[in-house]
């Protein structure tokens, strides 16, 4: 039974796919066991071990964070000890998308397309402040956080994050994979096919990010100027 296997040929919606999985689970299908058994936990363990120890990153490096990503892969910090030395520049063969750097609105459809081209199972890391929230570039041209474009699993703060920070984020992905289960296949892995190419966050979510301070298009260079006074300094400091 395939995703398009329905009269009319329309692709199934996400809710229908998830109901499918639940149905199979109740029938005791191959992957959909109602409760974990000895066999399924062992299979889960092996599959998750294999997946988390052979993640092939898709480096979507756009700016300064890409330098730190290269540094993480280089000898001093060495992603090869995690099995991630093979940076896959083809999204078809990649497991985890590392978006390192600021993303302009002109690049947003490219990022979405690369994400859509990655095969399941896939995870994503938003590396740095610009990918997580727009960073210092709260302007007309920068995406204010790639989670409005693609789903993000781990955010790594920093400007740029140190290689240890990126490695910590990758280890969080590994930890997330460790606790996955194959029976969650339909809820965890299924993507709504009708959302391909569409923004990940809906309009209400993006607007909720637009507050009176920052991320608001109603501000210009003049109204957002804050009045500053000379800071108080103690007298014993050198001039």
């Amino acid at each position, binding site marked *: 039974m395939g995703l*398009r296997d329905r009269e009319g*040929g329309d*692709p199934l919606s996400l809710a229908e796919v998830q109901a499918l999985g639940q149905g199979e689970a109740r029938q005791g299908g191959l992957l959909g066991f109602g409760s974990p058994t000895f066999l399924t936990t062992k299979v889960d363990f092996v599959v998750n071990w294999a997946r988390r120890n052979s993640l092939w990153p898709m480096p979507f490096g756009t700016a300064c964070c890409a330098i730190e990503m290269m540094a993480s892969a280089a000898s001093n910090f060495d992603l090869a000890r995690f099995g991630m030395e093979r940076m896959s520049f083809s999204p078809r063969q990649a497991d985890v998308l590392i978006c390192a750097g600021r993303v302009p*609105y*002109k690049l*947003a*459809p490219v990022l*979405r*397309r690369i994400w*859509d*081209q990655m095969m399941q199972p896939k995870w994503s890391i938003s590396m740095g402040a610009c990918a997580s929230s727009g960073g210092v570039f*709260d*302007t*007309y*041209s920068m*995406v*204010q956080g790639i989670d*409005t*474009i693609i789903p993000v699993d781990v955010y790594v703060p920093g400007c740029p994050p140190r290689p240890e920070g990126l490695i910590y984020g990758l280890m969080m992905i590994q930890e997330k994979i460790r606790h996955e289960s194959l029976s969650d296949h339909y809820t965890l892995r299924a993507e709504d*096919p009708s959302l*391909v*190419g*569409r*923004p990940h*966050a809906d*309009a*209400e979510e*993006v*607007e909720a*990010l*637009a507050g009176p301070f920052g*991320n*608001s*298009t*109603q*501000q*210009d*260079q003049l109204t*957002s100027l804050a009045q500053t006074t*000379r800071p108080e*300094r103690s007298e014993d400091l050198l*001039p």
Partner: protein
Amino acid sequence: MDENGSAFDAVERGPEGSERSTGTPRSGIGDPASHPSVTALRARFGATVLHHEVQAGDQHVVFVDAASNRAVLEWLRDDPEHRYDLLVDVTAVDYGGGNPIQIVYQLWSVGHKRALRVKCELPLDGLSIDSVVPLWKTADWLEREVFDLFGVDFRDHPDLRRILMPQNYAEGHPLRKDFPLRGRFSRAEQTRRALSQDYHDDYTPEALEVGGAPGLAPPEPNGSIDGPEEAP
């Protein structure tokens, strides 16, 4: 650390002009006669040359009437005494407050090793000037950038369209002083418009071909990466 108080006083005073900080300027550097192209321009074009000044200590700037920019620049490029064969940059400045926008041509003479900056002022309701693409091919993209970010129309430009902003950008020209920092649309609308860019509107299939060899391009379905649409 200066004798007038703490360093914060200097910050509040603001930056000092280069003339004041170095005392008397180097002899002759500020003199129009010290740049041979300026005197020659004045001799040849007369009233078209509106003004001359020296900025940042040694950069000579000549203000020229915008209607004759191509004539002036062509003479500067072709005359053997000056031969400004390298157009370093075409850019613009918007000073805000209703002031005219200045188009800036940065020229460099490789043979004579001289730089010259030519500026033309355009009123905000008359942002149109002749393109210099017939003189320097590099002006093609440089003028596209000025058009994209300032909205200046370059007459006789072979391909005047946006170059930095997306082709469907509808919020205006971002580097104008009256343009808000974060754009005119809401973030949700900007996201939606960014993801609805369709380059098939602007490029023919031949232009999109891989490697320029005809017939090798993979067939591109209509804007969908799911594959060809199913037959009804």
